[in-house]
């Protein structure tokens, strides 16, 4: 008898404010009307997905010192939308990014606990850090946190939130006048008093961590329930999966206690050929002439607006040093000169224009194929332990996951690798996570792991 198949989990990410989101298509709807968010959430729940995911914006992006106007601009407040979605869904988790740098523990912990109550136990928090002074200009304290300290504050922030979340007794009806009393004094926070929200259904909302670096992996192993990671080819995905799960041992955690969810894009078609053709069309929509020049400018760090996007690559070299051309986004362009040389060599060897080259290096969709092919590929990632689930990042609002729910979900179910009903009542249960682990246990495990490292 063979081992039972691992179950594929899927979640839905609302399209973001980068060029992966296509706004020029006739099917592209509003990025701000409540109905767009509610539609996608209802569709995700119809598709029995784990959760709806919404990112956070704290400053509009800039390019060459001006507001970047080529991508979708503007987005709603995370918690406000998630609370509205909780009202119109029954099983779907509501997950959102909230920065540990520009929120404060007491306020954010009570907002998340409120969301967990209102959703009957479906709240999740993707804890990220924001280290740049650019974002700080929208906040009273400005850019105050040195880059190397960003995770230290985030870890302390999560630990504080966990203490607040469990500060009330299990039965609030019989609570005395000191219910919710707490004190947290650390390098980053000195707070004391009474927490205002009694224990919520999950006690601790589910905590996500996003970030693939070595420090980010340890942060996740020591503080989070889910990692939101980047998609990679199968072998690299397996390596990442093994590495992260291995780190759990040091924190006294089993491998099912931290779930790995890559963010993935997809393009479907009637046949695999049809899907590939559609994927080429989507890639061109995602990469208009002005968009590909702006993309190269982020590497070259200089004005390239005079170049023809359908012509050859720039011969000039990137400008190294100096203020960054692009603000407000996470960039991964290190070693600009080497990168430019590599791209120029590829373009020359294959006769690619600027636009074709940019599409080649940046617009690779994770899963492209017929519904059956995509279901097979996604299942393979889970069976072969490169992922526990996926966060779908569609390219259209609000209908971007409709076709996936209608066509891929039934294929997954037919293969016996996808739920046919929600198993649990809380998000924690539907993710296959154990009940919350008390704050003191988290703290002791982190202290133990540090001792081993030292």
């Amino acid at each position, binding site marked *: 008898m063979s081992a039972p198949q691992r179950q594929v989990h899927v979640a839905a990410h609302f399209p973001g404010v980068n060029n992966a989101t296509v706004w020029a298509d006739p099917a592209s709807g509003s990025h701000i009307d409540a109905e767009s968010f509610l539609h996608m959430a209802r569709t995700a729940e119809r598709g029995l997905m784990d959760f709806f995911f919404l990112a956070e914006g704290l400053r509009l992006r800039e390019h060459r010192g001006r507001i970047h106007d080529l991508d979708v601009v503007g987005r709603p407040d995370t918690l406000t939308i998630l609370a509205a979605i909780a*009202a119109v869904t029954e099983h779907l988790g509501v997950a959102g990014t909230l920065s540990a740098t520009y929120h404060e523990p007491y306020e954010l912990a009570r907002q998340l606990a409120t969301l967990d109550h209102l959703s009957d136990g479906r709240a999740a928090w993707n804890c990220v850090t924001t280290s740049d002074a650019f974002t700080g200009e929208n906040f009273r304290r400005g850019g105050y946190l040195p880059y190397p300290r960003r995770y230290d504050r985030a870890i302390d922030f999560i630990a504080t939130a966990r203490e607040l979340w469990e500060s009330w007794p299990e039965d609030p009806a019989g609570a005395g006048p000191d219910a919710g009393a707490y004190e947290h004094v650390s390098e980053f926070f000195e707070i004391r008093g009474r927490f205002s929200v009694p224990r919520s259904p999950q006690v601790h909302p589910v905590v996500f961590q996003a970030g693939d670096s070595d420090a980010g992996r340890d942060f996740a192993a020591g503080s989070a329930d889910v990692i939101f990671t980047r998609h990679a080819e199968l072998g690299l995905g397996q390596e990442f999966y093994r590495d992260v799960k291995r780190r759990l041992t040091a924190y006294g955690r089993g491998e099912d206690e931290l779930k790995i969810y890559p963010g993935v894009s997809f393009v479907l078609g009637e046949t695999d050929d049809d899907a590939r053709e559609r994927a080429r069309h989507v890639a061109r929509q995602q990469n208009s002439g002005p968009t590909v020049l702006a993309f190269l400018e982020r590497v070259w760090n200089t004005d390239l607006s005079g170049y023809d996007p359908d012509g050859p690559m720039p011969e000039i070299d990137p400008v190294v040093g100096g203020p960054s051309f692009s603000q407000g986004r996470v960039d991964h362009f290190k070693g600009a000169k080497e990168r430019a040389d590599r791209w120029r060599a590829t373009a020359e060897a294959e006769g690619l224009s600027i636009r074709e080259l940019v599409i080649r290096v940046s617009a690779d969709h994770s899963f492209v194929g017929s519904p059956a092919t995509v279901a097979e590929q996604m299942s393979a990632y889970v069976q072969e332990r490169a992922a526990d689930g996926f966060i779908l990042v569609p390219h259209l609002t609000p209908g971007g996951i409709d076709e996936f729910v209608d066509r891929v979900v039934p294929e997954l179910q037919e293969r016996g690798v996808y739920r046919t009903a929600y198993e649990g009542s809380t998000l924690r249960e539907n993710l296959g996570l154990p009940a919350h682990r008390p704050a003191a246990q988290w703290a002791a495990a982190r202290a133990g792991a540090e001792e081993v490292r030292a």
Partner: protein
Amino acid sequence: MSSTRPFLTAVALDPVPADRALSPTDLLSGRAQLGLARAAEDAGADLVTVADALDAADGPGVLAARLSALELCAWLAPLTRRIGLVPTVTTTHTEPFLLGVSTATLDHVAVGRAGVLLAPSLARAEAANVGRRPAADPPEAWRETGEVADVVARLWDSWEDGAEIRDVATGRFVDREKLHYVDFAGTDSTGVPFTVKGPSIVPRPPQGRPVVVVRRDPGTDLEALRPAVERADAVLVPAGSAGADAAAVRRWCPGVVVLASCAPGEVPDAAALAEIARAELDGVHVTPGLAAGAEVLRRLRTGLDAAGLDGLRGAAGTLRERLGLPGAGNQYERS
């Protein structure tokens, strides 16, 4: 006495001591508040308010709980259709930028029915919970509340109507000439200067500007509230001093809507309602409790009818329209 001027009704979705009989689950899941919000909407009330502070409340057991008011109102938004939603948001410790984007988003999810009750955190306990700075003197905290109202209005205005253009020919999603840095510079309630750059991340809310409400609690100095009142659309004043308070706040802010706020559990009868109307108030704000709310609304209807007041009308439209407020202008729009 008869009047054709609409008489406004606001209902607080806050527990009163009698609500300790409610199950904790009903209180914490929002179902008790939803029940009263729907009863108020069905009765034709104009708006609901939700109290908040950055501390546990004083009540026994679960009545010491305080859910975050803004999230509660966002959750109520898709579950209601016509009634205005006005959460309390604190101005002393909360970041003005976050306040601006969350209230703008509430107006999007409520499709033009949002307001915000701006309230300073005056208690030392709140300062200790946030841990960023000491408690402020009330006059300074109210001055700062006025500044926060200014920042927030700028953030709401920082996206002009029509900023989103989706111009396929040039590849531009927005016309950045219609997005504005707010460049606010002020001084917080502890004397520390601060700036907010902008623009908001949230496109202009449906009402342009959600309704800004300020509340005078009994026993507080009205004069201290002035910087906040001057930037408010509506003010809640204690029923006991309603006439004098209304005259003062209208001197500071002509056209402001003034509601007489009754003590928790207190329901004005026909005579009390008539007196509120004679004192030139625009309406009444009641805190009936979550369990007794629907019954209280029936009594209120009887009282209004007996006093000949045209209230609980269940009008449609945005919250600004229901309150008879003019459309919101935009300080950044060139005419």
